[in-house]
């Protein structure tokens, strides 16, 4: 119960793994979701208890061994000796339909090796007590004590292009169109607002691209040893479209299918590595009225 794999049915239990991981777990069988595992709230409680006894960041040895074994298995699934992973927090009330918590919790990208994974997991767990998170929770009227948090450890996708896709227009509220924001590299520059991404608007009915705004994309986030960094986009790529029509439509189809599956308009993060489209996150659009 400490560690659940995304495709395990139990991993759809929000109370154990949080909204983010539960949502992904629901989709892992049918969509191309990078292989991953989740350290559950049960694991968090053990870590917290061990910490209270022995000081901060102390892992119960059994839990630590379990993580090592799981990382080993992930390596086998990826066919790699040392898979590179993304470590993200998945709070129990995060990605609920009312508050997205987008960017509130810590995310560690490009992490390699079980020691680094364990350290990143600890930091995710510690981040539940950060002032920003507590303030955010107060604003949304969520409880500030007994916060439950799980951590998702997933193979990292070396994204050529990352995108945030909305199955309804989050600005106009228009539900007949899909809006895609796509830019070079990892999604952090889009999410963090440091790049003006390309925008594609796709009509849901006809799957025709009704609008294409190719931006001058100046910055991108790339993976670097034990993390990421934001760099200048090489000049020749700046005004190149990140997506051809086929890829934009493939993203729109994905958003439509997910909206159908989840039963609510979705906001998803996805990425192309080569010609493979990976689903990285899926959550409800919280701003629609």
């Amino acid at each position, binding site marked *: 119960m400490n560690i659940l794999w995304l495709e395990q049915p139990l991993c759809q239990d929000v109370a154990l793994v949080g909204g983010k991981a539960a949502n992904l777990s629901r989709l892992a069988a049918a969509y191309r979701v990078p292989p991953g595992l989740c350290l559950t709230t049960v694991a968090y409680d053990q870590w917290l208890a061990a910490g209270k006894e022995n000081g901060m960041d102390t892992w119960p040895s059994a839990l630590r061994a379990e993580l090592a074994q799981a990382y080993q298995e992930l390596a086998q699934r990826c066919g790699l000796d040392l898979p590179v992973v993304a470590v993200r927090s998945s709070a129990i009330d995060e990605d609920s339909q009312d508050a997205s918590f987008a960017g509130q919790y810590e995310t560690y990208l*490009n992490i390699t090796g079980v020691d680094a994974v364990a350290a990143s997991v600890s930091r995710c767990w510690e981040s539940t007590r950060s002032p920003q998170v507590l303030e955010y929770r107060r604003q949304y009227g969520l409880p500030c004590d007994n916060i439950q948090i799980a951590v998702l450890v997933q193979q990292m996708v*070396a*994204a*050529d*292009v990352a995108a945030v896709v909305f199955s309804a227009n989050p600005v106009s509220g228009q539900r007949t169109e899909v809006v895609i924001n796509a830019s*070079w*590299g*990892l999604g952090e520059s889009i999410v963090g607002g440091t790049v003006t991404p390309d925008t594609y608007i796709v009509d849901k009915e006809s799957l025709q691209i009704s609008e294409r705004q190719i931006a001058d994309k100046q910055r*991108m986030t*790339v*993976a*670097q040893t034990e993390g*990421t960094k934001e*760099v*200048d*986009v*090489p*000049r*020749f*790529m700046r005004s*190149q479209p990140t997506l051809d029509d086929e890829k934009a439509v493939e993203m729109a189809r994905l958003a439509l299918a997910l909206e159908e599956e989840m039963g609510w308009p979705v906001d998803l993060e996805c990425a192309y*590595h*080569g010609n493979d489209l990976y689903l990285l996150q899926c959550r409800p659009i919280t701003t629609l009225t």
Partner: protein
Amino acid sequence: MAEQNAGGPPEPVVLPIPPDFPVTWGYPKEQEAPWEFDPMHFPDPFPLLEAEFLLPIFEKGMSPGFASYELPVQALGHVFNNYIYMAMVPAVPLEEMEAQGKRAEENLGATIARLQERWHEEWLPAIKTHLAFWESFDLENAALPDLLTHFDASLEHSNDLWNIHFQIVTPVYTAMGLLDEIYRELFEDENVFASYQLLEGFDNKTIETNRALWDLSRSAAQTDAVRAILANNASDAVLAALQESAEGQVFLQELRAFLAEYGQRGPTWSLSQPSWIEDPTPAIKNLQDYIDQPEADPRVQQATLVGEREQAVTTARHRLAGYPEQAVGQFEFLLKAAQAAIVLTEDHGFWIDFKAMYKVRRVLVEVGQRFVAAGALENANDVFYLNTDEVHQAAAALPQGDLRALVDQRKAELEHNRSLTPPHRLGTDYGPPPDSPLSRSFGKFFGLPIEPQEDQSLLKGNAGSPGKVQGPAKVVRSLAEAEKLTQGDILVADTTSPPWTPLFSTAAAIVTDTGGILSHCAVVAREYRIPAVVGTGTATSTLKDGQILEVDGDNGIVKIVG
């Protein structure tokens, strides 16, 4: 410099003709062209026949070479007071420049992707076919009319070779320039040399020649008698001394075998100057230097460079591991292209600029020889002071005729013109060329204009090769003056062509008047790991022998420290 209009292209400015460099314009358009002097390749005034054979480099070589990629510019050539000038002018109406420039970039990109294939399957075989034209002709025994037909045909073959030359160098320099640009963008690296480390240590014909020369020096060092002859004679006296001993004659055989393979080159881009086969003094000077440089083994140096290059490539790939495939793919594409390109920067010159032009020279000198035999000329080399029409007329009149007075007059003119200072520009100035990958690469090849320095003890140039070193200056105006260069000296020259490069193992650093970071001099100095400051504009005219210089290759600065 043309003045910048607000927003628009610069207004053309008709340049004044300097009072001490008289120019009479021919047809009106002549004055409208932006004539530029190229001291990196053609610093000296040329006699008539040589100029007539070299001038088509532009209109018959560069222009069709550019046109093969649909570049929207063409080149013109002109001789003013025996100095060669070129001008780049639009090849299409101005409103079509941009669209055609885009097409040219695509065409260049297609060749950049397959430089090695085009070299091996197309360009080198074509070059060898042209060389076979000369090699299959029995110069000495040809009847005069046949020789004259061969003489005319030689110009056609020469022009075709210059066309191939520019089909090669245009994508070659573009590829290296683009790699440098993407490297600096990806790694935000301010070190001007960083990208060129990825190109170090590849074998080329210049390095191969220097290696053969080195091997010859090891052979000489093994025989005491030969070693003594090399040590105790001036370079130009060694040949005679070798002939006087049995061991010397054995070594002479080896030297001749080397020259037959690698000596088909003169000291610079020229037809009127003797090749190493005719006058091996520069090669012998290199041999003498190599004897005392047991550590200068080119193989060891090359192995070091290869190791560094591989390390640099590995590091770059590692840093790019997390980048989008589009960026990695473009980097790998340009890396492969530029690695092929850097070899061709030297090899095209070996085959065309030197080997083929040596063949042309032999034809012209043989024609001169016929005039000498008939008593019309004093020396075969004097034929260079005639033009092609005069050659044909005089040949038709043989055995009558005496060309010596005419030659003397032409020599006097040339000597007078040698004292002139050719201005860098003539005609009309249109401002800097429009930005393109090619114009940026040309900037790296020819170097950027240098602002004059107020501080008299300072000379600014382009960074050519990294490192800082001190040593006494030796101003070497021609390879014939190279004798005075000794170990640890700073070689100061207006330009250095490939035949100068064995001197780079004797020199502690290089300072030139001309060139940029992609010039022959800078590329080879990096291979020899000696600092170089190139394109100072004035080094040979302001620096004096024996002055102690500090050469800072990283920053492109030469300081006079003593």
